[in-house]
């Protein structure tokens, strides 16, 4: 056994890496709990890749999309389970990504030298949301049809080039089998190609810079900080979290199997109470709210501008709050973060109540 190990270590030239991995530590403190959420997101992503490939075995994009998902759900052995896991794992993926992002935000883990971690993470989040949006259309049932129709109105509001972009995404003037076909290419080929290298960079940066300390810990002298070895202690805990996540996904997927609505029908009116998935609920509710105050196109344009500005601001936080010495900016950023979380939660709740 150890001979094989030695052989591999030597041939792979990873002796240094192993020494490094053995020395790697993870800080222990009151907020250590938040360190696990990136790993949980990673685990869900792996589940998505595996179940996504499995679904691809039977899924047929284009005009047969609905029929093939119907067969997967109702005729193929355990097809309902694979599909349900893919949907639930996507949900839990985005939940953990959001928790991960906000914990990084409040721990100020985006500060020098970790700015690139923040930016690559933001891009991963945007790609993750695009995964969600494009995947939602693929079953081509009534909900996914209308969600995509409404969602593509967003690029449509971009001045001048908006309609052209929306048409290109749609593959026509209306959502049709061409839309499903190209959304499939987006969902299963283009997004993974963009996502994987970015993810590799993101993970590499974490190896490089290690876990960030929250400001309260950073204030303590070195001798008072506690650490645990990454291998095997933190890894074991990480794996335990993965196991819990796996069980949560399995329980949710089997107790609440994902639904398949009636096939998309261009002539059928939108079902009552139609609304987007929870991760777009806040935007949906805000647009509705802005629309009440400022009806018509201007309201929509205003709402979109608001989102874009908020996102840009969020993206640029590491530049604004780059120094732990500047307590004023640091506090302002914390308040801004609390404000953003509050707005997201309140508008989401309002969105669900207003259904």
């Amino acid at each position, binding site marked *: 056994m150890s001979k094989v190990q030695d052989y591999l270590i030597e041939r792979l030239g990873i002796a240094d890496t192993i020494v490094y991995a053995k020395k790697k530590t993870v800080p222990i403190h009151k907020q250590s709990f938040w360190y696990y959420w990136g790993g949980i997101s990673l685990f869900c992503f792996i589940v998505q890749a595996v179940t996504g490939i499995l679904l691809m075995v*039977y899924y047929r994009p284009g005009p047969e999309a609905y029929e093939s998902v119907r067969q997967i759900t109702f005729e*193929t*052995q*355990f*097809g309902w389970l*694979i599909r349900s896991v893919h949907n639930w794992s996507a949900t839990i993926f985005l939940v953990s990504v959001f928790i991960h992002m906000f914990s990084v935000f409040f721990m100020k883990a985006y500060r020098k030298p970790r700015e690139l971690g923040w930016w690559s993470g933001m891009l991963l989040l945007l790609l993750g949301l695009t995964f969600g949006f494009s995947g939602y259309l693929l079953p081509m049932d009534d909900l996914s049809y209308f969600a995509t129709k409404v969602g593509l109105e967003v690029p449509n509001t971009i001045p001048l080039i908006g309609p052209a972009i929306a048409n290109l995404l749609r593959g026509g003037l209306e959502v049709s089998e061409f839309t499903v076909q190209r959304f499939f290419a987006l969902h299963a080929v283009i997004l993974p190609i963009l996502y994987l290298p970015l993810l590799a960079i993101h993970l590499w940066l974490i190896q490089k810079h290690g876990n960030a300390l929250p400001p309260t810990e950073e204030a303590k002298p070195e001798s008072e900080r506690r650490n645990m070895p990454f291998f095997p202690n933190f890894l074991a805990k990480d794996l335990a979290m993965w196991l819990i996540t796996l069980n949560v996904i399995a329980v949710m997927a089997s107790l609440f199997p994902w639904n398949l609505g009636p096939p998309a029908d261009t002539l059928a009116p939108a079902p009552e109470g139609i609304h987007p998935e929870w991760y777009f609920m806040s935007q949906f509710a805000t647009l509705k709210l802005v629309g009440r105050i400022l009806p018509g196109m201007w309201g929509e344009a205003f709402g979109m501008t608001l989102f874009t500005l908020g996102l840009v601001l969020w993206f640029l936080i590491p530049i604004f709050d780059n120094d732990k010495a500047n307590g004023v900016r640091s506090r302002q950023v914390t308040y801004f973060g609390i404000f953003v979380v509050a707005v997201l939660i309140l508008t989401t709740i309002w969105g669900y109540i207003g259904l």
Partner: protein
Amino acid sequence: MSDLTADPTEPQVDEEMSRRGFVRVAVTGVTLAYVAAIGYPIYRYLNSSVEKSAAMAAVKDVTLDKANDIPKGTALMFKFGIRPAMLIHHEDDSWVALDAVCTHMGCTVKFDAAKGNIHCACHGGTYDAKTGQNIGGPPPRPLTVYKVAVNPTSVTVSRV
């Protein structure tokens, strides 16, 4: 831990060992259970289309509408379950139905009306068009022959 200081409440060395052994067995068992719980649905899922095709292959007979009309000296290709098969109406008005999958390496064979035999283009195998017997080339076994019943408006082919 020496004998002098041995504390009866403290686990003995071999007890420690057996506890470790137990943990190892438990971890292995749980891991195997997870592998099975994940692997089984995936296997059944991937095998689903195999099961479907096996069910389709299990048919006992096929009725071919209007096949009673095919001219003498010609063959009609049809699907017996999921396998290609051929129905030959010979010049002497006899009817023969055979599996059309070459027993050599699985190519679909062809009725050669001029020579009155069945020919496989892949490696030049030949079969007798009445009995299905392999008469030339690499095929190791005869073609499976089916039973034919000619009805007034159709032909029924069934397994013998």
